[in-house]
């Protein structure tokens, strides 16, 4: 399976410089992307991006409320601020073929797929109608029908699992690619690099996406990572990197076009860093002592992905009323999901024993 440029055969051979190494394409994707960072979205596409990002925002705000009311338990990691990443990337996928996997901050990625907010919210409240029958909770949600493979609670595990999904795409020759998200915190897990190595060695069709939201729980990237420009971390494995403004949905989508085309062409993995910002705490129990209120405020005012796209839409001739109508519809959808999640029954006690094993022995 391996397809690699030749290495100097003896240790005495002079090192090959990057300039002489024709196969070394580390910078070419970034160059192609930098030439045009703006996806030429149609108005309809932009309106849909706007609606989807708003849906994530309002859904997460509601989840935060329900958590405060005690209706959602355990850990609950909100995606507020990062909406442009999931929407920009997943809007470029082929839903018939491609797969997605992520960590525990997964509500946004599911909503980006158009999965019914009702069954997601009902999972958060631990009800039988939840997408995992109430047995998974916020961090463990899956939709194999959408080729969404979770929803994984162990930091970094989804990267190796994503490598396996990509292996299956290649093995089955189904033309699909895997999109594997992880955070700046997970980027320091050893298995991420084990996976980089094998993905590059075997030319697996996978896009690794680092959602750098600047903090691994409460530890700023500069305090945890010797190299905070995560897109460079594939270099040692000959994986081309891309650095993307994750607060701009059109830029993320433009990057997705470049990265996905590369991977679909059978040229192996891409590592994409999306710089973003999470407004809320790491989880609902975050004391928020590690950053200032001003820092968060600045991000909200100057870099908010929804406000950013709103400006573009207004400039393109949409009215405030048009956009308000979208917000109103989204709020109604989220309110209905919350009502459903609050009133749906809990799982039957017999469900305790189901789904442990598939077979009977």
């Amino acid at each position, binding site marked *: *399976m391996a397809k690699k440029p030749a290495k100097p055969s003896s240790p005495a051979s002079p090192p090959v410089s990057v300039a002489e190494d024709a196969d070394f394409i580390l910078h070419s994707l970034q160059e192609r992307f930098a030439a045009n960072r703006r996806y030429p979205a149609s108005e309809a596409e932009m309106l849909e991006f706007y609606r989807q990002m708003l849906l994530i925002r309002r859904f997460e705000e509601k989840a935060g409320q329900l958590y405060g009311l005690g209706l959602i338990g355990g850990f609950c990691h909100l995606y507020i601020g990062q909406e442009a990443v999931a929407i920009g990337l997943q809007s470029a996928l082929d839903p018939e073929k491609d*797969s997605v*996997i992520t960590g525990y901050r997964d509500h946004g990625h599911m909503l980006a797929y158009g999965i019914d907010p009702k069954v997601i919210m009902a999972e958060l409240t631990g009800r039988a109608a*939840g*997408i*995992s*029958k*109430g*047995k*998974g909770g916020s961090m*463990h*949600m*899956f*939709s*194999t029908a959408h080729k969404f*493979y*979770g*929803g*994984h*609670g*162990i930091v970094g*595990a989804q*990267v*190796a*699992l*994503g*490598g*396996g*999904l*990509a*292996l*299956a*795409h290649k*093995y*089955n020759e189904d033309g699909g690619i895997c999109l594997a998200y992880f955070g700046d915190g997970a980027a320091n897990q*050893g*298995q991420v690099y*084990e*996976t980089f*190595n*094998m993905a590059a*060695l*075997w030319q697996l069709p996978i896009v690794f996406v680092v959602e750098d939201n600047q903090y691994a729980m409460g530890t700023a990237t500069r305090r945890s990572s010797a190299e905070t420009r995560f897109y460079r971390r594939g270099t040692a494995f000959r994986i081309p990197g891309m650095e993307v403004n994750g607060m701009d949905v059109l830029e993320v989508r433009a990057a997705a076009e470049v990265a996905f085309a590369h991977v679909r062409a059978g040229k192996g993995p891409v590592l994409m860093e999306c710089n973003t910002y999470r407004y809320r705490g790491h989880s609902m129990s975050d004391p928020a002592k590690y950053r200032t209120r001003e820092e968060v405020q600045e991000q909200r005012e100057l870099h908010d992905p929804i406000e950013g796209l709103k400006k573009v839409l207004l400039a393109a001739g949409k009215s405030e009323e048009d956009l308000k109508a979208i917000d109103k519809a989204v709020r109604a959808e989220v309110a209905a999901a919350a009502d459903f999640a609050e009133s749906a029954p809990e799982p039957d006690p017999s469900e305790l024993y*189901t*789904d*442990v*094993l*598939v*077979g009977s*022995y």
Partner: protein
Amino acid sequence: MGIELKMPALSPTMERGTLARWLKQEGDRIEPGDIIAEIETDKATMEFEAIDEGVLEKIVVPAGTEDVAVGAVIALIAGEGEAAAAPAPAIAATSAPEPVRAAAPTPAPARPAQAAAAAPAAADPAIPAGTALVSTTVREALRDAMAEEMRRDPRVFVMGEEVAEYQGAYKVTQGLLAEFGPKRVIDTPITEYGFAGIGTGAAMGGLRPIVEFMTFNFAMQAIDHIINSAAKTNYMSGGQMRCPVVFRGPNGAASRVAAQHSQNFAPWYANVPGLIVIAPYDAADAKGLLKAAIRCEDPVVFLENELVYGRSFDVPQVEDYVLPIGKARIVREGRDVTIVSYSIGVGLALEAAGMLAGEGIDAEVIDLRTLRPLDKQAVLTSLAKTNRLVIAEEGWPTCSIAAEIMALCMEEGFDHLDAPVLRVCNEDVPLPYAANLEKLALIDADRIAAAVRKVCYR
């Protein structure tokens, strides 16, 4: 001074091997580092390298000789200044080509596994009467199981360290690369956590991976994926997402490899709901259960044993030999006492049963075969018959499978007990390297027999 070249051991467990070929001929000059011969065992082929210089004076063991004992003189090198043709009186007796066997030490002691043959083993109900039996090593049986399932289902593939071009670190995957090619027999880097995750993800994506760990000691690096990713997925997803992966490889103490390479992880995995844990003893079970494991919709941890790989057992020659998961087997019927075991412990339990038979104690031996889900009924039924029970486990006693069986007997078999249940496990220490200490630490037939006498009040 002539130098005697002796048959080398390629591994701590090797006792005999084949002298495949000579790369130097009599009269050739030998420099240190020259490859002079190729030695083969069922596990591996190795080049035999010279460490002395001189002239190859005499080839004592001709190329192609099988079953050459480790330590037997295979050739003579004449040192500097000696005439190649000079007689070597000290070894005159072995210089004729014929008495190769005579030069070899006495044959290695009979393998403990063979004790099984003497016992009246109960027939497996899955085997139709009159089926031909073929003597097969456990190693071959495992390979046959994988090859058959790979022929049957294109989704099945095997990945792991050295599974392809090297033909398996323990030669279990021998020949698979040639038949199925590199797409389905994948050599991985030494990166257990990573490839266990990739294998698990591939199973989620619809494939049927067999992930080989060179030994389960290294799987500790990967245990997060086995437990958190593979075992829990079906439950966490409300039955939506399957993970039909098989993690297999040798488990338990090998021979003289010390603490980090000698551990029985069966109780660790058997603790986890969502996993199937299988630990076969003989070749037929290894084959039938590995085939079942590969077809299983649930994640399976399949624990083999390096010391058993080379042992031969009868395997039924049937078209598609698949055994049920979750069923124990009575490997020796008896009236007086039940010995429950699994994996390598079964051979020792049978050996103990043979010793006890001479003392008038008729022991029944049960091979659990599957450790999760445990065949409780098989244990309880036997206990109801014999009223006495001993568990033999090559592993630590604390929180062991033995402890689980004892709890089962207390909770569900108390009324049938005529004596306390006893367990025979390894000593509760990291496995030492020194030969005498290692022997002291591991279970053996004598200790099992002693425990049986105790529960029989003999």
